[in-house]
């Protein structure tokens, strides 16, 4: 006879309910994507497909090819640039403090808390003044800049905790300037925060919708999230096509969370 406490049973019961509730959308997404248009109308969203077909999945990737490329460009450029600047800024604020530097750093971190909604109009005007409005270039620039505060925060926390000041002082006494110390000593020791910052930024940029919607126009410039939203037909809702698109969009982040999720958690919990 197994001796299990009733509280345990209750706990597991609740956990199972939460798991089902969390996985239900994904399940619906997968089963719907595999259904033919006729079957979508005839069955409920959660019943498995009777006659699974890859048709819509292939159709959606053909439609999303260009936006997928766009999003990849955004992710790579954004991650590279903001991680690099974030690292250097984090290094300066952690190891080369100057009077008032802590307030400057707080200001940088505060940028994380400005909701995008209030920035929409100013940003559209700025981008039009720069002649970038409607282009993919607007998004490239935006993600590069918007990623810096988060990256700076991640890198500063890492440098504060993991790189002793004596490394910097030793390099100083040995004749190395700020940049040489960064390149020769700090940068090679920063692999972990680069992984963490890059993953966080990949997820943020990949999943972003509002900036792509507002700042780009024309089919050629859309990021994948916006293009996916456009998959819904004008007159008939093609659920299976939309769900197939959603599968493609969520795939990369899902894979990242499953295999590299621990690094993302470290990013949010201060490494």
């Amino acid at each position: 006879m197994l001796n299990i406490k009733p509280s345990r049973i209750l706990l597991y019961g609740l956990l199972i309910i939460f798991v089902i509730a969390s996985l239900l959308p994904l399940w619906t997404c997968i089963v719907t994507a595999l259904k033919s248009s006729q079957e979508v109308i005839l069955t409920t969203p959660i019943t498995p497909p009777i006659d699974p077909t890859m048709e819509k999945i292939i159709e959606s990737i053909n439609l999303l090819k260009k936006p997928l490329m766009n999003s990849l460009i955004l992710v790579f450029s954004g991650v590279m640039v903001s991680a690099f600047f974030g690292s250097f800024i984090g290094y300066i604020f952690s190891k080369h403090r100057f009077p008032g530097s802590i307030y400057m750093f707080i200001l940088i971190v505060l940028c994380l808390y400005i909701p995008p909604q209030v920035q929409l109009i100013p940003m559209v005007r700025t981008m039009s003044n720069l002649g970038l409005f409607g282009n993919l270039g607007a998004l490239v620039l935006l993600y590069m800049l918007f990623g810096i505060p988060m990256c700076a925060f991640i890198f500063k926390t890492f440098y504060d905790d993991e790189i002793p000041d004596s490394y910097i002082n030793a390099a100083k006494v040995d004749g190395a300037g700020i940049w040489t110390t960064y390149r020769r000593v700090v940068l090679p020791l920063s692999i972990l925060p680069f992984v963490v910052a890059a993953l966080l930024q990949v997820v943020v940029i990949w999943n972003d919708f509002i900036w792509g919607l507002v700042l780009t126009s024309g089919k050629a410039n859309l990021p994948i999230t916006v293009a996916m939203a456009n998959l819904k037909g004008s007159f008939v809702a093609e659920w299976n096509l939309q769900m197939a698109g959603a599968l493609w969009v969520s795939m990369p982040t899902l894979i990242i969370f499953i295999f590299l999720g621990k690094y993302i958690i470290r990013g949010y919990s201060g490494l």
Partner: protein
Amino acid sequence: MASLTIKGLTKKYDETIAVENFNLEVKDKEFLVLVGPSGCGKTTVLNSIAGLININEGEIWFGEELVDAPQKKLFKIPQKRGVAMVFQDYAIYPHMTVYSNMAFPLEVRKVAPEEIKERVIKAARLLGIDHLLQRKPKALSGGQKQRIALGRAIVRNPKIFLMDEPLANLDAKLRVQARVELKKLQEELGVTTIFVTHDQIEAMTMGDRIALMNNGHLEQIGPPLELYQKPKNLFVADFIGSPSINMFQGNLVKKDKSIGIDLKFFFYPLTTKLSKSITDKEISKVVVGIRPENVLIVQNKKDGLFQANILRIEPVGKEYNIHLEVEGKPFISIESSADNWRQGDRVWITFAKDYIYIFDQESGDIIS
């Protein structure tokens, strides 16, 4: 190679004064130990010499060269001072091999690659770490890391070595060995060295001279034995020596013609010469200091003795630390043998006459 002069150094952190009006002269090729309890400002002095912190007042000279003088708006950055520093945690870069660690300061200074190789190998041989050059420091022991840090300092041919407790992270046995080696190395290289430590044994054994600091001030500077034998004040007497000096509070009293010190449990008469020097000063409360090796336990009662209880007998190997107590006041005697006594015994005690220190209780300064 250079001498070092510090004049009137003052460093404040916000409102806290870390070091105040600190003066120091270190001769060329000298090994000077800067010692003191934690928070006394010794590391601040060292970092000021290196240029790692900005001082508020004072001047720092390397030989004839002024490197730091805030009043004259002069500050030479650490990169340009030509000092080499060894840190307590060694500050060895974990991603570089031992060779790269030692070559780093030379590479930064753009020394020719062949010369770098030559100098690194020479330094590694000198330190006996030439077989480790291709290893990463992660797997190395504390003693080896400490040598790498030393090696990185040596390859530079610096004017001055600064060492911030470089032996503190070694285990006790290794530390004794490293002490000897480091001292020998310094003599061979003849580089002026400032060595910071909180360990008075390290200070005593390594320093040509010791500068003892407390609360941001220099208490006394001199050769080790001078500090031990002629402490200027209570703090110095207490800090130097292990086990530390025994101290008894007492009052100066006149008895018959001579002056003596009333220690409550014992009346200690002063010699005429001593009493003369004391009567000139208006002091009544004093502290008597006596080193443990000068507290003698005697078999039989004689004049000028007092009785104490043995609390504990600690064998330390070649000698015994005997913990005693008189009227609730504990003190220690060092004896070469403890065969005649047992814990709890009541014994007769005397102080070796010429080795007693008398301090003014108020100022802490020595009277005799």
